[in-house]
């Protein structure tokens, strides 16, 4: 019985438990003439939960621990001599597992019977070829020791699985029966199942934490490898970014960070005022028709794939800025520039600012407006002097979300700002950002284990820490200024 079948059967048991529990509660209530504490369904649920949850826990733990246990026992039996020539012990174990799996497949498909298997030995049979027929790839031919280990692995696993199935069933039945037997009208069945739901909700909120752990974990390992190859102080303090194919690269983080800031700054300098004006206009001035049409229309801007913006920057905005602004002013002849990427990205960010701010502005209590109008202020005075300050913490939140997007954006920067990492002030020069370099170093043609590729992980991690600090700061700001009204 495979784990999935096992899961399904436990689920089946749980469903049966549900109906039995429900029925028992109803019967007991009728017999004793007492009122049920909870709705009958909750009694069913509690029985079902007790049937399934402990069993699943056991199964999960078993699935996790059994391979570890078998592995250590088998691996101890493989003589060192078998390992010396074939690489590390763990590699051998990978082969053992794979062969065991393949053998099971062979038997499943009827190519080999159990008896034939016990007679089979690696010297006589070409195990590798035979396994290939069922789609199991092996790196090399199978040595007898390994094959024997695999057979043993398989047999231990089979018996382990057998015991597991029995145990899981027993646990399901046992707990289920216990819960069923416990069912009586005064039992707080609802509380039991709600506690379980609460645990589920709590678990869901843990996904965010796990994701973070996963991200840090998957970045950290390669980052460490990077810092072994490349000095950290050069990475953090050097002002040149110049990867080379044959090593000796300069991988300074600063120009990228500067580019990130510069481009984001330009983008936000466009998006924040325009987005805010849109929000104010829609919230305070616009009639319902305009609002009903303009709000979703502007939100569409956020849904257009960024590659479209990128092409727009590359083909239209870049040359326009160069021909009409940069060249006449003598600021350069580059069509890809911080300005190009920033402006186009700004357009993309408008809805982030406008939509969120709109909600926040609407949430400013009417009393604030009344207070101001009552003093004879005009609408714009009220907006500028009362509503905006009151909505500021929320707007900071919107700003931060937009800033996050700006920092994380790739396509627009690649096509709009170019790929040149440099520290400069001229907004009409090409620059690049951290995210762009993460993508390009990761998908480049350099060898993977070189600092030129691994730097992507270090960049990702650094950026992660950076945005984390930004967010903590934001939380602090919002906390500090929140609840001024209410």
């Amino acid at each position: 019985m495979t784990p999935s079948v096992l899961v399904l059967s436990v689920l089946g048991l749980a469903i049966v438990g549900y109906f039995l529990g429900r029925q028992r509660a109803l019967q007991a209530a009728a017999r004793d003439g007492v009122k049920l504490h909870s709705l009958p369904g909750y009694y069913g649920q509690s029985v079902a939960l007790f049937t399934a949850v402990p069993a699943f826990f056991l199964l999960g733990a078993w699935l996790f621990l059994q391979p570890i246990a078998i592995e250590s026992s088998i691996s101890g039996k493989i003589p060192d001599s078998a390992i010396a020539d074939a690489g590390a012990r763990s590699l051998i174990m990978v082969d053992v597992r794979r062969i065991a799996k393949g053998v099971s497949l062979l038997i499943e498909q009827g190519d080999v019977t159990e008896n034939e298997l016990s007679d089979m030995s690696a010297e006589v049979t070409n195990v590798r070829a035979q396994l290939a027929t069922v789609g199991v790839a092996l790196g090399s031919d199978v040595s007898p020791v390994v094959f024997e280990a695999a057979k043993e692995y398989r047999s231990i696993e089979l018996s382990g699985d057998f015991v597991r199935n029995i145990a899981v069933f027993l646990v399901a039945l046992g707990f289920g029966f216990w819960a069923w037997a416990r069912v009586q009208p005064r039992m707080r069945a609802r509380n039991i199942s709600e506690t379980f739901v609460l645990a589920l909700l709590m678990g869901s909120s843990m996904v965010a934490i796990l994701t973070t752990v996963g991200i840090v974990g998957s970045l950290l390992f390669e980052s460490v490898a990077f810092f072994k190859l490349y000095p950290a102080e050069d990475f953090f303090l050097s002002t040149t970014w110049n990867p080379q194919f044959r090593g000796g690269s300069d991988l300074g983080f600063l120009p990228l960070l500067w580019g990130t800031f510069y481009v984001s700054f330009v983008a936000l300098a466009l998006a924040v005022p325009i987005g805010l004006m849109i929000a104010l206009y829609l919230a305070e001035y616009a009639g319902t028709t305009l609002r009903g049409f303009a709000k979703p229309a502007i939100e569409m801007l956020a849904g257009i794939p960024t590659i479209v913006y990128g092409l727009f920057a590359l083909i239209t905005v870049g040359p326009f800025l160069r021909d009409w602004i940069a060249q006449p002013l003598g600021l350069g002849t580059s069509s890809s520039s911080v300005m190009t990427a920033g402006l186009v990205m700004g357009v993309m960010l408008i809805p982030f600012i406008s939509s969120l701010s709109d909600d926040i502005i609407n949430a400013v209590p009417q009393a604030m407006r009344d207070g101001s109008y009552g003093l004879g202020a005009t609408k714009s005075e009220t907006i500028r002097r009362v509503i905006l300050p009151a909505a500021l913490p929320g707007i900071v939140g919107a700003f931060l979300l937009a800033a996050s997007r700006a920092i994380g954006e790739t396509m627009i920067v690649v096509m709009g700002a170019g790929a040149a990492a440099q520290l400069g002030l001229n907004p009409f020069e090409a620059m690049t950002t951290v995210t762009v370099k993460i993508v390009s170093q990761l998908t480049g043609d350099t060898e993977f284990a070189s600092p030129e590729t691994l730097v992507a992980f270090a960049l990702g991690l650094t950026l992660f820490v950076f945005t984390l600090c930004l967010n903590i700061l934001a939380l602090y700001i919002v906390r500090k200024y929140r609840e001024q009204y209410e």
Partner: protein
Amino acid sequence: MNIMSEAATELAVNAQTEQPEIKMRGKDVCVFYGEKQALFDVNLDIRKNAVTALIGPSGCGKSTFLRCLNRMNDTIDICRVSGEITLEDENIYAPMIDVVELRARVGMVFQKPNPFPKSIYENVVYGPRIHGQVRSRAEMDEVVERSLIKAGLFNEVKDRLHEAGTGLSGGQQQRLCIARAIAVSPEVILMDEPCSALDPIATAKVEELIDELRVNYTIVIVTHSMQQAARVSQRTAMFHLGKLVDEGPTDKMFTNPDSKITQDYITGRFG
């Protein structure tokens, strides 16, 4: 407190014997919220330098009438006003009227204290600043001090003028709102249940303040508390179901009202 309210009544009696000067006047005021009519032909004179109390059961249109007096109802889209309301004989609903200036002359204090989320100083100076009544720092300081003194708040907050207005207690906040209204030197101050969110001690303070302000300003106050109306007002108007049912000197209204409804309401038969 008793002494004070008695004094007020006395003053009111005096005021009545003089030639009454009319500050604002409502003529056949009807108000509609969309389809629904909230006020029916209200005719009411507001006397200068007196406190006029609007009383009546919930939903009878007190707030609606009050908000007509400085056109705060304009902010409600569906609200339409017909009839005429004059401030010193100028119709405030005339098309050429500038609402902004109207509201500078007819200030308002609301039920829930609503200080701006700014410092106390900024709260007070806000009105004068937008109306260009203050220019220099010194002028501002002066306006702030004067208004807070008038509102009886200065001593309590003089050391923390630059702290947030929202950090004050409810009663202080309401007095700050009054100071804010006073700061633009209005002629009329409208108050919509200014004490209903306050505790008794704060209420007493605000009532005292209203009595003092009467000397310089014309005050219209909406209240649910008959007691409060009796304590602070010289004239009382009784609304019921959108109609003005009775109006007159407060002491007469509370002792010998003309209409049966007023009598029933005051003696607690309903409301």
